[in-house]
């Protein structure tokens, strides 16, 4: 599988640390941060291909972070993760340009599949620009 850079944004430490570890195990260049603010800071430092973003976080929530990310890095694809299904925020997220909206818990292989597709989409878009 082709390598790409992933940023995982989730305030639940256990969840984030585990998923970062497992994605690294699949040879993905993965970084984990605990908040929307930190995510934006990380993205200023280096470029990421795919962001996995929790919807509900203290401080800047996922939707706010998504808005900011798509404004500043429109080509980076964002997969929203949610623990509680909220149709409202799902619609909002898709409208703001999220690549997908996924319910937790999601099997790693399924998530990986979505991440690959998101990355492929980014590559297609970059070819266009």
């Amino acid at each position, binding site marked *: 599988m082709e390598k790409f850079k992933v940023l995982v944004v989730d305030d639940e430490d256990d969840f984030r640390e585990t998923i970062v570890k497992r994605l690294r195990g699949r040879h993905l260049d993965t970084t984990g941060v605990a908040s929307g603010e930190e995510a934006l800071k990380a993205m200023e430092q280096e470029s990421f291909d795919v962001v996995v973003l929790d919807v509900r976080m203290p401080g800047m929530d996922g939707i706010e972070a998504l808005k900011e990310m798509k404004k500043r890095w429109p080509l980076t694809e964002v997969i929203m993760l949610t623990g*509680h*299904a*909220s*149709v409202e925020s*799902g*619609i909002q997220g*898709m*409208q703001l*340009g*999220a*690549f*997908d*909206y*996924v*319910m937790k818990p999601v099997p790693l292989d399924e998530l990986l599949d979505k991440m690959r*597709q998101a990355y*492929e*989409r980014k590559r*297609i*878009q970059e070819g*266009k620009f």
Partner: protein
Amino acid sequence: MWPSLPLGAGRGWLPWLAPTLTLLAGLCLWEGGYRFFSVAAVALSALGCAGVRALCVRLAQAENARQLLDERLLTTQKLAALGELAAGISHEINNPLAIIRQEAEWLRELLSGARFQDPAQLLEFRESLQEIILAVERAREVTGKVLELARERQPVIQKLDLNRLLEDMARLVEHEARRKNIRMERRFAPDLPPVESDGPLLRQAVLNLLTNAYQAMEDGGTITLTSSWAGPDHVKIAIRDTGVGIPPEMLDKIFLPFFTTKPPGTGTGLGLAITQTIIHRLGGTISVASQPKHGTTFTIVLPLSWEPQEQKG
């Protein structure tokens, strides 16, 4: 529009031919479709009566289809012009809205250091500011959707597993639907090939329709989500609810921007307009059938392989 022609099989049909041809030609001219006349005349001379009847049926169908297309094109053009206007206005309104919001937030900050003789006044001040900010957010939701409607977002085409996509969106809605005693039924064709389409756009469209479906059901019901073949190179998605249904006189308006049956402030009336725009952009069609008190079905037909459209919108 076309008369059933007195063309019985067997002998004796020849004498009918001349008057029939004249009648046919007259009708064609009258319909303004005189280009059909030459085709019809040539074909008539070459074909037997069964062929003539079949031809007439085909011609009538073609004429109907053409009229439908003309109407659709006109509606599309009208909507495109309206959309452009609305987008222009939205854009202009967004700037002052941003200023109002920023100033309101600044006032809120100033307020933390302010002193009032009557503390109740401070509270009222705060609540008032909060109302302003909320109202600005609501306005921005509308302008955002209008801009979304007008934005020419070129689809990014990838091979999609349609059933997977439908299942994902169903799961999102199912959780919330269950609380309203709504069941989600899946009928996915197992043999669908990958569909060339834009995942995020299609997800948005399906999610919009699923939301509408569960909002249409007040005290429980069933949403049936179906995927199937539609001819050799198309697939069909159907979303059926057992809700209140749509009155027949409203059916042809529901895709129009700002048309809503929801109480003011709860819906922008742009969901279905956006959904239709998306589906057209994906090279597909969307249609609706409804029976008041029994429910509504939205049907999307998508091509298996996507080709860029010449026509915008």
